[in-house]
């Protein structure tokens, strides 16, 4: 994976250079946005609801025993906004969308469609990579906002209806409002934007590097997902370390 980092950075740089052509590729970008949203929204909803719920259940029972039940809202709020929302959503998108990007571009490479584009003087970075990277860079932060809100709601549901916790909606959200500020949500959005670029670049790079037929495509898909998740988790630490000061 690490020997390809240079190639991936080069692909990213070339895609940045292609940004002036973004308006031309708007229809493909919108198609990709629809694909990402349509494929991920329901899954994101279910995942976030249960993450928020589990968080409230695990921490809530311990906090209530120690008379700290009124801080559950803030704890779930910050955890979802700064960490679990962006990381879990990025992992979900790496699996769902990163794999599909690598498979689609990989099969185009394997079946000479990318060669055909090049013979027509159509740059595959403009035509294939740019719309995908733009779409995921917009879609993932939006999904994270949605995920964070659903996660908060999941935590509130469990806090209110679980007999071990028994914290009302009002108390939960009052505490959440006191603890969570815009900076916490922005923190998560910055992370998710970086993770989106990682997923887009890694997946498109793996697709473009595909060699051979169906087996090669399968290998590219696996590498795209695994490498994206590993890089997300590594970068998460460093981003947290940087953003903790703000």
């Amino acid at each position, binding site marked *: 994976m690490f020997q390809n980092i240079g190639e991936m950075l080069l692909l990213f740089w070339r895609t940045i250079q292609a940004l002036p052509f973004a308006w031309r590729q708007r229809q493909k970008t919108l198609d990709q946005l629809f694909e990402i949203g349509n494929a991920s929204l329901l899954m994101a909803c279910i995942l976030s609801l249960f993450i928020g719920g589990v968080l409230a259940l695990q921490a809530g029972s311990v906090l209530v025993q120690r008379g700290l039940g009124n801080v559950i809202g803030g704890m779930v709020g910050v955890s979802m906004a700064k960490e679990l929302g962006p990381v879990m959503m990025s992992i979900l998108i790496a699996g769902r969308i990163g794999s599909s990007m690598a498979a689609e571009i990989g099969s185009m490479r394997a079946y*000479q*469609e990318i060669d*055909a*584009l*090049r*013979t*027509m003087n*159509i740059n595959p970075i403009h035509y294939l990579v740019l719309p995908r990277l733009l779409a995921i860079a917009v879609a993932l932060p939006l999904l994270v906002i949605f995920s964070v809100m659903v996660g908060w709601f999941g935590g509130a549901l469990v806090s209110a209806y679980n007999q071990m916790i028994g914290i009302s909606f009002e108390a939960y959200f009052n505490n959440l409002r006191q603890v969570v500020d815009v900076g916490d949500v922005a923190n998560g959005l910055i992370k998710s934007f970086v993770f989106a670029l990682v997923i887009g670049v890694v997946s498109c790079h793996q697709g473009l590097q595909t060699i051979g037929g169906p087996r090669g495509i399968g290998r590219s898909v696996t590498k795209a997902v695994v490498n994206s998740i590993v890089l997300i988790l590594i970068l998460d630490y460093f981003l947290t370390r940087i953003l903790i000061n703000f």
Partner: protein
Amino acid sequence: MSDHSKNSHSVSVQVHGLRKSFDGVPVLRGLDFEVHRSEVFVIMGPSGSGKSVLLKHIIGLEIPDQGEILIDGESIQKPGVMDKVRMAMVFQSGALLNSLTVGENVGLYLTEHRLRPPEDIARVVAESLEVVGLKGLENRSPSELSGGMKKRVALARALVIEPQLILYDEPTSELDPLMAVTIAEEILNLKRRTQVTSIVVSHDRDLAFGVADRIAIINEGKILFIGTPNEVKNHSDPLIKKFIHAELTLDRTRTTP
């Protein structure tokens, strides 16, 4: 449109000392030849002799280990040279974009380079599809087409480019004899209409002798002979004779044990 109409003359291609190896296995072993302007130049040779790799070098999909390819005297490695020349390649598999319809595939070059308004593109696409006998299939998906139909769509896509240099990789494989004749006629029609320089890689002897101005015989990455169809037919080299005059002679009296 101005971009599209510029450089309407055909081009010449010179190949000097071209060598290429893959994983240490030499595929092209020093090729030298020239394709003249408006010529139909057919490259023949056994499977694995390096014909398709040679085509990929000429269109810039592969970079040579040694040697160079010149188009109108300028090396294709020089920045901007490939952008100046309108080239098209008809791939053996068609290489159509499966995510697009047939019509979108054929009009892709014009759409992406914004060379004509959409209604003009639709008309040009319809005309090109009619030329290759696929009138009215604009809205079909490539996955609904047979191998031969895909190849004809690929040819229509190349026609739309109005190329100065067109490369055909096995243009008649997978086609029935009637359609093979249609494709051969279209290769010649295109040459007559636009004076395009054509390089054709093929095993099809009928196609080669029917359309070629000159034929190159290539074997194991080397050129054995270049000449007119008549010169190739009458050549005394045993390898060339064997390839050109190969006949299917099965012993029908033999039975399987």
